[in-house]
């Protein structure tokens, strides 16, 4: 029963308590803008927690997706809705209390059952001994990729990741189909969005110097994903965020002149097509779907290097899709679908 002091439980508990406070505040606040901001803070706290749990890839993704993009699309939506909420109506009180009671009972049951769970951070728990040593010990020999998370993500469980790219593609498609509906009558539109007339030199100057760096960093994250935290998702989200920043600092039209909505949609589909196409190519070469080792003869390298290149190629596919989808979500949600003016 020794406890490794390096895990710093005091820090963890502090962060977790702050997370609970943020969660309650986000749900309790009356103003929707402030709730959206508090939700962003909640995401940052969870990033901190995950970094501390050595899940750097996950923390990276959450910082880019949860804290940045989610907050932006929350704020984008807040332009089109009533920003102040009413108090919950009294007739709901009964149901509310009932839900509370059932919830508390379930929570107490689950909390008391944690006694039987393997201890937190126990190296001998089933999760740490059954499959994961295999990935860590064989992953490098089989895929030549030091970042085990990348190897598992894009190769061992590459089929999952392909469908993950399909999920974001589907989301972009659904949002577009929903909001850009030409025949719809705008019955009760709220127009709270600001008019951008004045030129804000400071913002634009900052954007001019930040955006190129961001894009280079995004490419680095994508291409260096074999060796360091990062990969297609993170790189794609950062690249997409650079266009969103452009739209925020200038205006939506300015960003759309550089990255047109047709091209965005085209990129969404092309990324997935690249991924699935590589899978199908492996199938055509006589291996199973997504068996990148099939590419060895084509590339003139060994099987494990072929897997490494295969991982890189599908990560690029994921990067393109995710980048385009983030931009597409921003274009649609921040402009309410008319693509005239954003946040």
């Amino acid at each position, binding site marked *: 029963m020794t406890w490794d002091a390096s895990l710093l439980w005091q820090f963890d508990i502090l962060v977790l308590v702050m997370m609970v406070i943020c969660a309650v505040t986000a749900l309790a606040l009356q103003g929707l803008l402030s709730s959206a901001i508090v939700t962003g803070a909640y995401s940052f706290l969870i990033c901190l927690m995950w970094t501390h749990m050595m899940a750097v890839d996950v923390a990276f993704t959450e910082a880019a997706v949860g804290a940045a993009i989610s907050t932006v699309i929350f704020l984008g939506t807040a332009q089109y809705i009533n920003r102040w909420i009413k108090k919950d109506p009294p007739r709901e009180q009964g149901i509310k209390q009932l839900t509370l009671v059932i919830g508390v009972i379930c929570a107490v049951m689950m909390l008391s059952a944690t006694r*039987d769970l393997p201890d937190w951070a126990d190296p001998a728990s089933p999760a740490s001994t059954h499959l994961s040593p*295999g990935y860590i010990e064989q992953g490098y020999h089989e895929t030549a990729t030091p970042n085990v998370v990348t190897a598992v993500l894009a190769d*061992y469980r590459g089929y999952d990741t392909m469908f993950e790219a*399909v*999920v974001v*593609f589907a989301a972009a*498609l*659904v949002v577009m189909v929903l909001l850009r509906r030409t025949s719809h009558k705008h019955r009760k539109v709220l127009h709270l969005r600001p008019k951008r007339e004045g030129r804000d030199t400071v913002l634009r100057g900052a954007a001019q110097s930040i955006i190129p760096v961001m894009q280079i960093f995004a490419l680095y994250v994508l291409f260096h994903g074999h060796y360091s935290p990062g990969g297609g998702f993170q790189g794609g989200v950062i690249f997409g965020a650079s266009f969103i920043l452009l739209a925020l600092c200038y205006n939506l039209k300015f960003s759309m002149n550089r990255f047109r909505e047709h091209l965005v949609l085209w990129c969404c589909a092309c990324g997935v097509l690249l991924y*699935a196409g590589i899978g199908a190519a492996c199938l055509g070469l006589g291996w199973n*779907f997504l068996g990148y080792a099939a590419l060895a003869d084509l590339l003139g390298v060994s099987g494990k290097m072929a897997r490494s290149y295969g991982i890189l190629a599908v990560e690029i596919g994921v990067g393109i899709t995710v980048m385009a989808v983030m931009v597409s979500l921003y274009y649609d949600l921040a402009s309410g679908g008319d693509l005239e003016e954003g946040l």
Partner: protein
Amino acid sequence: MMDHAPVLMIVLPVFASLALTLIGPLGHRAAYGLLILSIAGSLAAAMATLVQVVQAGRAVQYRMGDWMPPMGIELVIDHLSAGVLVMISGCALLTAIYSMHTARQDNPDRLNHYYALFALLVAGLMGMTATGDVFNLYVLLEISALSSYGLLARGKGKAYYATFRYLMMGTIGASFYLLGVGYLYIMTGSLNMADLSEILKQPELGESVNVRIGFTLIILGVWIKMALFPLHAWMPNAYSRAGTTTACLIAPLMTKVSVYVMLRIMFTVFSADYVFQQIAWSRLVIYVASAAAVLGMITALSQRDLRKMLTYIIVAEIGYLTGGAWLANTAGYTGAVYHILADGLMTLCLFMAVGAIIYRTGVSTSAAMEGIFQRMPVTAGVFLIAGASVVGIPPFCGFFSKWYLLQGAVQAGEWVFVASLVIAGLVAATLFFRLLEKAFFGRLDDAVLETGSKTSHTAARTIRWNEAPLTMLLPLVLTGAALLGLGIYTNEVVRYLIRWSVPAGM
């Protein structure tokens, strides 16, 4: 290519949806053709796999990326999933053919994107059925869920709120499933179904309260997804406000695939012994299922809107399916699995027939049925077949599933379930008899005719042949024939497919 059939049937629709997005508005005929082509390919692959499975007498496995199973993801298609896969792709193909006119009517713009989502939904459902990995199932569940939100929200104005509620409930269901998977993972360290079931045989895991919590959470999540009785509130509005094609695609398939997932979790990941001996609440499920069957049918009886009525019939059918699965004997299990296939076809048939009637009359209440036999005899005939099947009249497949379910219920001594099956059957008979009475003897001058408003009173009185277009009739008649065919070949289906998948310990 035969070896790759398991993956082809999933990725073909994905490629179709990408192509539909990329080639842009090439015109609706190109989009329609592409969709049908891809789903037909999917169906062919599913049939090939079915033949392979039946001939070999064991499950077909497919390793993604050539990785060995517990490390990589594998597809496992056994007798149970092969049948369900053919049912899914078959129903989707029929709906795709049927969609020629209705999809264009419901989607004046962005038809190709609508079809892209259609294909994605099919891919998601096929993938859920074929996969042998519990986390992969979650990802595909979310694909089918996301695309169904998009499709359902294409309905009329009130569809948005209904879809939003569906989204909330769907997310809760999927998240419960994911949390349950987390509990299983923490206790076993594995995600592969076969591997999990091996590990879960250890006696100390059988006793573990956390494994029980994991099982409960997964089943609860799946119940929300399949709209079992007290958790069904999201479904009727979401389905009845959707466009015709959407309803025909989603109503038969989404809930049935969720039932399939429930069976997979209960009997493949866990075992019959575990579910019926270790889980304290498993005896109570049969009462929930009985309540679902009876209350679902009675609520259906009180609906005026045709599609809402059909949705409540689904609620009742889900009660039958759940009851059959939890009867804990071979007959009940056979009935439940057979009913997945039968009910998929019955629901498809009913929704297609009602869709055709709504397409021609423009009315969605039961008034649309007035005099339908004179105006749309083929549609009405198929509707009669589907109704007879739901009620459970012999040569049609609905009878045989009821027969097995009743047999199982009697063997298990679950008289409540027996009573609920009988009562629900009687209520269904009343319901369809009432509709058919209108359809046969409905007064034509009360009937709402599409052309009737222009013509004089006497013109409306004459019998007007106004059958649905051929692209709608053909799949409708095929489905009706399939109902009959499945009924006639019940013995073969049970012997070659279902017997093989009966879990050990029943």
